[in-house]
């Protein structure tokens, strides 16, 4: 019975294609704008070209920095996002976008942000969706356009967005966030220079608690409020308020706009058609001969032929999205401290962590040693990120070991002198100073050389 229903859902339920078309256009334009903004701010140079050494994701050590060709990669990615917006050679464009964007992200994990990961994940999903079947240049070229597309294609985007919100909400159910209002109690008072609220509300303890609890409830509830037709307009207003508030308070770039526009996918075709109409009339302004009609045949619906491989890929993709964020349960110790299973899990804005980590290069036989000046090898941003994340510390320790080996030093041992403060706690030693990190290998196993946090954080 259930199987039949599922089968029916995938084969025979259809929906209006305008929602996906709107989504495609907004996504493409936002990405184009983000990439230009990134370039304009000089970040291509400061984040991808200036560093002498890049921190790699485990398993992606083969991803090389392209140095000044990184600009080329950004150009490719920007053109692809424009083509996605136009719906021009869509399938090819979105695949190129996914690959180039993800490659950029893989160059250096120093720049990891959940919202970049969201873009990668979303664009991967979009490779499988018929987002160019309506209101696209591809229609114009093919001479056909669709009146209906399978409903699951739109629903899959909704599902992904729901996972992001809900998991972000779950992650906020922890004692630091709810009982200590941490780290908002550190961050908000430092926003004293915001007009009106900075010197007043941002300084109040109850405001920190209100925003912590409010954020948690918002994240958990918003998927359901968006899914429900009755609550949808209210939910969308909440989405706007919430994300623009975060935009005012935190330097989070384009993410609020991405989430706001993404939420439009939940609306039904009435609104979507209006948006497309607006775009049409806007485009018509540029047309030389407005009376000339383009002949596009309407096809009643398409059967989206997904190859078995695509089907398996999509199933695995969603299983991964549902399960991977929970991998932390397999690791002992505090998640926020050890960061084992922290990334790729929609844990957003949960920790204020700062570290100071220096490395001691020792000759195991003569016992002679010296400390390294991190800034000889890392940018300020890399040093900051390295100082409190165990996998960064290990990777950098190996880089230093190999570097000094190459310089002719012998019997090299690398020790870390590392202190980290988490969510307002007094800083404590982070890495066992007696462990020679040069002998430790990166893996998915628990890193025993991280000294446990001398406190407990309860919750998800």
């Amino acid at each position, binding site marked *: 019975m259930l199987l039949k229903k599922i089968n029916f859902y995938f084969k025979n339920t259809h929906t209006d294609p305008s929602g996906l078309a709107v989504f495609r256009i907004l996504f493409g334009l936002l990405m184009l704008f983000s990439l230009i903004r990134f370039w304009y701010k000089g970040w291509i140079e*400061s984040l991808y070209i200036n560093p002498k050494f890049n921190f790699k994701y485990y398993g992606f050590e083969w991803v090389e920095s392209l140095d000044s060709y990184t600009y080329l990669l950004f150009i490719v990615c920007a053109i692809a996002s424009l083509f996605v917006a136009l719906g021009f050679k869509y399938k090819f464009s979105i695949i190129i976008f996914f690959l180039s964007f993800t490659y950029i992200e893989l160059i250096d994990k120093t720049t990891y942000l959940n919202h970049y990961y969201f873009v990668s994940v979303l664009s991967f999903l979009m490779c499988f969706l018929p987002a160019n079947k309506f209101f696209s240049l591809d229609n114009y070229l093919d001479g056909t356009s669709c009146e209906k597309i399978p409903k699951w294609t739109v629903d899959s985007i909704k599902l992904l967005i729901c996972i992001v919100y809900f998991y972000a909400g779950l992650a906020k159910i922890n004692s630091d966030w709810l009982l200590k209002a941490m780290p908002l109690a550190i961050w908000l008072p430092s926003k004293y220079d915001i007009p009106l609220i900075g010197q007043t509300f941002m300084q109040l303890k109850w405001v920190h608690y209100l925003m912590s609890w409010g954020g948690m409830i918002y994240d958990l509830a918003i998927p359901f409020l968006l899914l429900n037709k009755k609550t949808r307009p209210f939910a969308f207003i909440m989405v706007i308020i919430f994300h*623009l508030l975060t935009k005012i308070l935190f330097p989070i770039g384009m993410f609020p706009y991405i989430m706001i526009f993404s939420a439009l996918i939940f609306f039904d075709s009435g609104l979507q058609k209006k948006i497309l109409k607006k775009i049409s009339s806007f485009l018509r302004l540029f047309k030389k001969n407005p009376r000339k009609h383009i002949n596009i045949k309407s096809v009643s619906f398409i059967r989206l032929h997904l190859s078995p491989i695509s089907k398996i890929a999509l199933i695995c993709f969603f299983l991964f999205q549902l399960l991977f964020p929970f991998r932390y349960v397999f690791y002992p110790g505090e998640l926020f401290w050890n960061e084992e299973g922290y990334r790729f899990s929609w844990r957003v804005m949960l920790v204020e962590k700062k570290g100071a980590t220096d490395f001691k290069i020792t000759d195991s036989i003569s016992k002679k040693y010296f400390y390294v000046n991190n800034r000889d090898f890392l940018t300020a941003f890399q040093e900051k990120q390295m100082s409190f994340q165990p996998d960064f510390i290990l990777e950098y320790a190996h880089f230093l070991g190999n570097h000094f080996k190459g310089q002719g030093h012998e019997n090299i041992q690398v020790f870390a002198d590392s202190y980290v*403060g988490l969510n*307002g706690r007094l800083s404590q030693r982070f890495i066992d100073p007696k462990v020679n990190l040069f002998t430790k290998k990166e893996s998915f196993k628990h890193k025993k050389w991280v000294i446990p946090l001398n406190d407990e954080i309860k919750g998800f």
Partner: protein
Amino acid sequence: MIKKISLALFIFIFTFSCSSEDDNQSDFLSNSSEIFDSVVNDDITLGFDRSAMLVFWADNFIMPAYKKLKDDLSVLKESIASFNEEPLQANFEIVREKWLSAYKTWQHVEMFNIGKAEEIYLSSFMNIYPVNEDRITSNINSGVYDLENPNNYASQGFPALDYLLFGLGENDAEILEKYQPSDNNYSKYLVSVINKMEAKTNTVSNDWDSYRDTFVVSTENTATSSINKLTNDFIFYFEKGLRTNKFGIPAGVFSTDELPSKVEGYYSKLYSKTLALESLYAVKNFFIGKAFENDALVGDSFQSYLTFLNAKKNDTSLSDLILSKLDTAISSVTELSDDFTSQINTDNNTMLLTFDRIQSVVILLKVDMLQTLNINVDYVDADGD
């Protein structure tokens, strides 16, 4: 209706959020905040008065310290002039004495690497050590040199004077010999060095007269605001200028072997401890807000800022923790020999222990204090999550 409300809301918050990114707020915002300020009584403003702290820093630390340095250097310059006229032992002693007191004042100034000082690289002209002896010698012999050239940073400033006043011979007689007859190349080099030091210091000190007003109002939490920059400068100085240069490098922390000749005040063999202690006192006074050369005057400082933020770590206040570690470091330095070179040569472990104690203050400043103040490491510019 809902659409209209949400559109209006969107546009309102959008403009609001965009302008908060800019350094210059739009008129609308500053107007409304003025109105708000006038409505809300000052007593209700809950934030810490950062501008008052900046005023205190400028008026009671930075400007008086520069003023004092300016005066000290002018006295030193006069003493050099008298010595060059009559290159006698007695006059030489006076030059050395004036050099030391100016050098001690410098320890109160080096951390304020902001504004003009940063722009003209004041520290590079004042305190790069170890000196480049060969370069100094060749400068003196040729009589042709450009002290503006970065290659000459290690041939001028206090360390170069240290070399010229203490390092030119085995004993005072040998050194004095170099300055005979008066007005020779050695004397001329002394004059060039002090002139450059005085000129650079005057430039910075005079600039503060106008820069002050810009400085004290720049209270925002941005990478370029006075408050964030000076906080970063303070911590950078403590870590680099104080910990690394005065202790770490000579004790061999950053090299395989000890480098005892890289201490500050190397040639005098008398003053490395004096200078280091002076610098630690300067740091401590700035931290607790005891005005420059006026212990009775206490104002806003990192200590009161941390107290305002109620920064507690395991029931102890963070500023108490920092102060107690700082005092441990100071008492550790007190026990070292006056001459760090001989300390390193005879018992480097005590020197290393001192380094560790200073390092534990660095951790508290860099990790705990910066986290509490939520001030970012300078010039890290990227989006966050």
